[in-house]
């Protein structure tokens, strides 16, 4: 076990965990921040996507010891403009994207990272960037539409 002070959702948080513990489990088990989801543990489904210094990262593949002072943003902190949801969250509601909803935090984190990189993405940009996130319910056409709406809002 070792102590790590992390910058999560713009707050300093100290955890005492094994150095190889993936950020996914630090968030879910040590901090009870359960919005970040466990899907595969292999970086293959995107359910655990968080932002590390603004980039979309699969938190199940990221040991806590590698995080350092990087800014970690999770779905709970995506709406960091106090009191207002992120444009992606608003668009997800507008298009009523979710079915079961389990993958959607990861989808929204990827979508927000995409829009930060490419503010007005093409269909091809969206398909390419979002194909690391599986939605088993098959809401892909709505996700595409919501990302385009969010691009207009931002």
């Amino acid at each position, binding site marked *: 076990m070792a102590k790590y002070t992390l910058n999560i959702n713009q707050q300093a948080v100290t955890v005492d965990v*094994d150095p190889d513990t993936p950020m996914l489990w630090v968030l879910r088990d040590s901090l009870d921040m359960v919005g970040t989801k466990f899907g595969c543990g292999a970086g293959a489904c995107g359910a655990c996507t968080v932002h590390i210094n603004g980039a979309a990262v699969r938190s199940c593949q990221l040991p806590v010891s590698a995080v350092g002072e990087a800014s970690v943003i999770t779905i709970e902190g995506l709406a960091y403009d106090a009191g207002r949801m992120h444009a992606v969250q608003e668009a997800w509601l507008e298009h009523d994207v*979710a079915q079961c909803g389990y993958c959607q935090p990861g989808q929204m984190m990827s979508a927000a990272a995409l829009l930060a990189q490419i503010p007005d993405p093409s269909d091809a940009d969206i398909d390419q960037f979002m194909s690391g996130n599986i939605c088993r319910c*098959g809401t892909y*056409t709505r996700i595409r539409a919501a990302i385009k709406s969010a691009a207009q809002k931002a």
Partner: protein
Amino acid sequence: MTIFKTAIGRRSFLKATATAGGLSLGFNLLAAPHTLAADAKEAPSEWFELNAILSIHPSGDIEVNVANPDFGQNLMTSFPMIAAEEMDANWEDIRAVQAPYNAKKFGMQISGGSWSVMNNWGGLRMAGATARQMMRTAAANAWGVPVDEIHTENSMLSHASGKRASYGEMAAAAAMLPLPKEATLKDKADFNIVGTSRKNLVGPSIVKGDAMFGIDVRQEGMLRATVLHAPAFGMTIDSYDASDAKKMPGIHDIFTIKLFPDDFVRGFSDVAAFREVIAIVGDTTWHVLKAKKAIMVTWKLQESYSYQSADFFGNKSTVTVPKQVESTTDHNKAMQALIDGDMEQKRLDGDPSTAFANAAKVVERTYSAPFLAHNPMEPLNFFADVGKESAKLIGPHQGPVLAHNTVAAHLGMDPSKVEIVMTRMGGGFGRRLYLHFATEVALISQHVQRPVHLTYDREEDMTVGVYRPSYLIKLRAALDANNQLIGYHVRSAGVPEPCSFPNRFPAGAVDNFLWEEGSVASNITVGAFRAPNSNFMATAEQCFLDEVAETAGADPIEFRLQLLERAANNPVGEKNDYDANRYAGVLKLARDKVNWNARGDRAMGVAAYFCHNSYCCNIVEVDMANGEPTVVNVTSALDCGIVVNRDGAINMAEGGIVDGIGNAMYGELTFVEGVPQKRNLDNYRIIRMLEAPNNIDVHFVESQIDPTGLGEPPMPPAMPALANAIYSASGKRLYDQPFIKALKG
């Protein structure tokens, strides 16, 4: 306008609805009102329960108990819409909550078979109408006017005299009233909530990442567990050494648990290939996942054994599990041998032998499909807190009744001492009807005497079984000199069960018809997978009919419509499961919406299918590049009776279509000596954004028929419509799933 009685005999309101499966489900609108009347001082100070479904708060909030668990079919919105409609509630006042498990009040509480809305429609309407009647009576009493003169609208009561009150203001008085003897349902033409689009009431929680799934359950003092089962079907634990693993940090205990003692009669839900598993219990999920890898296990062949099984309707049979490890090559040979040998006849019309002997043309094709893993995005998991006297379980599952008796029996407790709470599910697709993991976590909690949350990792989830069966189907068609279909012959094989729909189309439309089937015994466990068995029968049948239509020189839609016209006007046989006119209706609607006859060079494929009491026609359009299809567009026409939440229904149809296309193109689980050849999502292909259709248009047949199934029907005909579109684009017929193998090798 329909007036209904709220009581049957001396019992309070109980509405039983017959279903396709012969099950019945009812709402017993008990009687908070009676209890309250007996001792008014005990009245709840906040919520006034008018019946099992509805409570009203003085603020005007209306809480609707949603009886069934939600895994994305959006019952948390559609159920309240039905009750709010009859209640004349203001939609903004509605709060949806997951009901507790209470069979006396809520009936079966199973999400599966596309039953939920169909089976709860009547009860929810009556619950809303009864509540409205009680509100009106309370107002009439308060104002000294006849109840018939009380008008309701948007949660407000009013009278021509100018008196007005909100439902919230009148809730306490209404709760004191006895249940009305009768109440009135609205005319369907007057619906103003049902049939509109309402946003998912759970949407805001989903986008914020709130805790709501079973895997998010957290309780004080809770430990975490995972399990390890044999790596191959047909294998079990010989011995194991966990001494190193037990010394790892954060590990509390490692031990084996056993399910299903020898004399246990397994119920519908008790499907499990691995009766003995190793449980690893520790402080965090990461601790137990790491320790699992440090356990040294010697596996051995599982001896053959038998058990008693009782199906959904209580019919008992003895199941014998063979001592063997199986490979996909063996399965395929065994199914081929069945197809080439004797099979069981399930339907015979006319004289198929003579029809085929006299045919001008005979078309004969064989279709195959592999096992599929459900892979819900939320891995299998469950929470249990087992004490000496009682137990509480919380988790994602498709129906608490499915686990209740099994868990209680394993704990040695009376079922009344075992509480099971439903959470939202991160997908189900049938997998969460089979709840061995609930029993496992109960036994683990009992062993360590602590609350425990059990999570399967993805590898364990994907390799533990309960798959979609594997199939081989041979179809033959006889055409006469006028290209009329005069004979149809099905030989349907499956491991361990075949597609068995002898009375579905085109039965009833062909004079000479023969359905035969057979199964190959296996120790690989299977269960319901979205549109069970329909999900491949549709592929075989609708791909085949496309080819038969082509051989007959007919347009594929016209060919189907002519058969359906025959089935409507002059059906063959009496036991035909479908309504030929509704079937034709979806074909015509899709044809017109896509402007089929003017499609020109656009590569389109059509398929229509009936299952789960609803009709769906999908028309898929593809572009081919580098031998792979891009699905440009899908046009879907559905007849599922009245649509409750229009946009929610469209979302579910879109999902079903994407699921069908994905599983047809990529889904596959094969076995070598009992070992599943895929273990995680890095090589088990699930459709991704790049492969999803560019556009999906969903259309509904306008209907006054009470709602039928919707979660499953759009999926099966997506598979053959895709195959038929690929043929249209490439000239290549597809016979074997996954299609990607045939396209790319």
